């Protein structure tokens, strides 16, 4: 296991190196002044730019610059956003939790709906529940997320007026940020406004979560189904069936545990897709997360913010994948015997 962990970690280091090298090179690839791209400070005075040049090692060679860049990253100095004048790190710290929160709830919904749906389809293979659910998943799989979001807004927000269409909570509820996870914050504050704020936050969460959960739910359903069918073909299941176990026993006691192993890996892999989809969802639902901020930054050509946002999001995806991989290998000893790490 230790050996395996070492292999993974070395792979992680390499990934991080590639990522930071890419982000660093963006400073050169973006149009505009190198110093401005690095620091986010525009129209600096002479003495200021001298100080910045020293800080960013502009006069040294690229390798030294890269080294300084990485050490700044570790110190939490991610530069200053051109448009807001605040540090990129503070933006990320404020906004990333909102994105993670949304992704997390979507993933929970996807797991709670997708896996049981997958089990049902495999249990009733080629019967009507299978056909209905498979059709639905195909439909959900093919709907572009932004279209679905607009459709839901049209029907449920503008049409029926059941749900709000923007933000995390009604703006008149004043929830001071503690962790920046809104439900957690409300809980920590002891459910202010007589619990109404919590309900309102759930209310705001509903549509974005449904939209974001759509894709991973369908993927998990299909994956669980395939994996279950695969397992149900195996000899030990046939043996169990021959011994006279009923369908419930076969599926729950014997097939499920083995079938879920690849699904767990799949859950981890969903994170990268989820983050991408979250960006679109955030823009449409005005969700104050890192995705909306990143897209605004692109629109405003705020290069330090684009860099920081990309770095934060990709780092998060890498870590999430790594974590999923580790959990998977904990549960499935066979996978540890791969001689090479892979992502």
């Amino acid at each position, binding site marked *: 296991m230790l050996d395996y962990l070492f292999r993974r970690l070395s792979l992680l280091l390499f990934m991080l190196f590639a990522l930071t090298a890419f982000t660093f090179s963006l400073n050169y690839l973006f149009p505009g002044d190198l110093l401005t791209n690095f620091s986010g400070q525009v129209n600096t005075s002479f003495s200021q730019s001298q100080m910045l040049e020293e800080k960013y090692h502009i006069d040294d060679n690229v390798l030294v610059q890269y080294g300084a860049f990485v050490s700044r990253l570790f110190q939490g100095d991610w530069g200053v956003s051109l448009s807001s004048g605040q540090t990129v790190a503070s933006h990320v710290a404020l906004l990333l939790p909102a994105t993670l929160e949304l992704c997390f709830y979507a993933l929970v919904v996807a797991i709670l709906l997708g896996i049981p749906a997958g089990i049902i389809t495999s249990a009733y293979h080629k019967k009507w529940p299978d056909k209905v659910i498979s059709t639905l998943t195909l439909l959900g799989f093919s709907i572009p997320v932004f279209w679905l979001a607009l459709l839901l807004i049209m029907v449920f927000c*503008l049409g*029926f*007026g059941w749900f709000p269409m*923007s933000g995390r909570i009604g703006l008149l509820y*004043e929830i001071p940020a503690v962790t920046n996870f809104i439900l957690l914050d409300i809980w920590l504050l002891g459910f202010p406004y007589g619990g*109404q704020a919590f309900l309102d936050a759930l209310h705001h969460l509903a549509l974005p979560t449904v939209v974001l959960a759509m894709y991973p739910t369908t993927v998990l359903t299909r994956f669980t189904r395939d994996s279950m069918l695969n397992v149900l073909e195996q000899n030990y299941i046939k043996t169990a069936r021959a011994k006279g176990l009923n369908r419930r026993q076969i599926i729950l006691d014997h097939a499920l545990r083995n079938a879920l192993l690849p699904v767990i890996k799949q859950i981890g892999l969903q994170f990268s897709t989820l983050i991408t989809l979250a960006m679109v969802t955030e823009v449409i639902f005005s969700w104050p997360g890192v995705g909306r901020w990143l897209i605004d930054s692109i629109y405003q050509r705020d290069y330090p913010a684009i860099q920081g946002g990309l770095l934060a999001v990709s780092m998060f995806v890498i870590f999430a994948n790594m974590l999923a991989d580790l959990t998977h290998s904990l549960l499935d000893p066979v996978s540890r015997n791969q001689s090479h790490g892979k992502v």
Partner: protein
Amino acid sequence: MVAKMTDLLHICQKYKEAVFAAATTMFVSACGDVPDAKQTNKTQGIVYCAEANPVSFNPQVTTTGSTIDIIANQLYNSLISIDPVTAEFKPELATEWLISDDGKKITFKLRKDVQFHSTDYFTPTRTMNADDVIFSFSRLFDVYNPYHFVQDANYPYFQSVGMDQLIRKIVKVDDYSVRFELFSAESSLLSNIATDFAVILSEEYAMLRASQDKKHLFDSLPIGTGPYKYKHFLRDNLVRFHKHDGYWKHDYAVDQLVYDITTNNTTRIAKMLTKECDITSHPSATQLEALSQRQDIVVDQAVNLNVGYWAFNTEKPPFDNVLVRKALAHSIDFDKIMQAVFYGNGIAAQSILPPSSWAFTEQAMPYYNPKVAKQYLSEAGYPDGFEMTLWAMPVSRIYNPNARKMAELIQSDLRQIGIRTRIVEYEWNTFIERIGQHEHDSVLLGWAADTPDPDNFFSPLLSCTATFTGKNPANWCNPEFDLLLTQALDTNDLKMRKFYYQQAQEMLIEELPLVPIAHGVRFQARSAEIAGAELRPFGGVSLANVRKEVK
């Protein structure tokens, strides 16, 4: 890559807007009234959907209308104000004012017992007095004021109207009266003191920040005397104000005023329909019809002193050539713009001044004729046209509800005379900043007046000092024109002033540093429960009297 992504985003946004627009129209007409969303805890507060982030919380340092709308009348008061109906001066923080016979000395008597905001970061120990007034004004022109050079000593409005050159000194007569001593009598001084920019700040708070060595926070964590006090600002999300309990004027301000920052026009309308906003600024003209059909939404409109224009960077060739500017002006189909952008809710400009201003005289405006335009272009030496950029502002303002669309119309018109145009867009505050640095070839922008005085359309926009402070989008400095403005200000004789302004208007149309396009009408959509949100013909939005009346 970035450019491509922006394109893609633009398409996405367009798509989103189109669908929203279709959706809003459809549901407004089909479903009629939407059932009430659950109203909880909402009567104590009001949500106003604004179109842009505030750039600062001190009106002295900006002229950006979207910022002034949010901060000026909510957080602060001026010494005097102008009555929107009678256009006479009204007492605010000053109860009375005396002008000496030569017009060079103005004495203000101050109101007593005016409380400053008490917030998490400052608790006032005294009420407003003469020191606060002197501090607030001396910051603008006195280099010995400790705050003069904070924010790079940039006070665009005051510098462009030359107020920093006008005041000799401000004298404290006693604790509750101050005397302004001027270098020369100027007819527009009182109306400039009555603008939203000339607010009274707390001297005590300023000294506290100075002693903490945190002067930079003075303009971002504001203390004023207005009906609301600052609580929280989260960029791209919201601005939260709380009620100022000791407000000197009245006690019925709402407990909480929240600005929901929503840059997209159609999203703002959609939020109106879902009741996430109580009041919305600048609803787009296409949606007005649909909105006014709803029982629970009221659309207010008011005549407003403003002008939307197309300005050329007159320092950059070929726009330094008046023939080129004339060619461009004659190539534009103004009627089409009035229909497609204003939907008939605007007045086509006949001068830079709107017809409701007393100094307005109708001018011989450029007219749409591509042949004439071509002719001017060949005279100027560009028979084959050239390439240029056209900057279109990204937000909707009174004077231009949809600059992007206007830019596209102009682009296609210019193609007729062989000029290739690239439309440039930035986020609003970045946009203003870059225009101030004169990076553009030409720009679609506008000006909404802060006072009914006609000088407000000239000095802040087109004077030489405005060029230096980056407020002159035409980058146009003409000494003759400046002389006319000074002459108009030096007299109190209304006839003479009108005469000078008439000449100034004529000169503008001859020289065309900018082409006036239209005067917009101010719109505001509000929920029927909201009362007291009156629109004014000039200046920023005031929500001092706004309240919710649940039936």
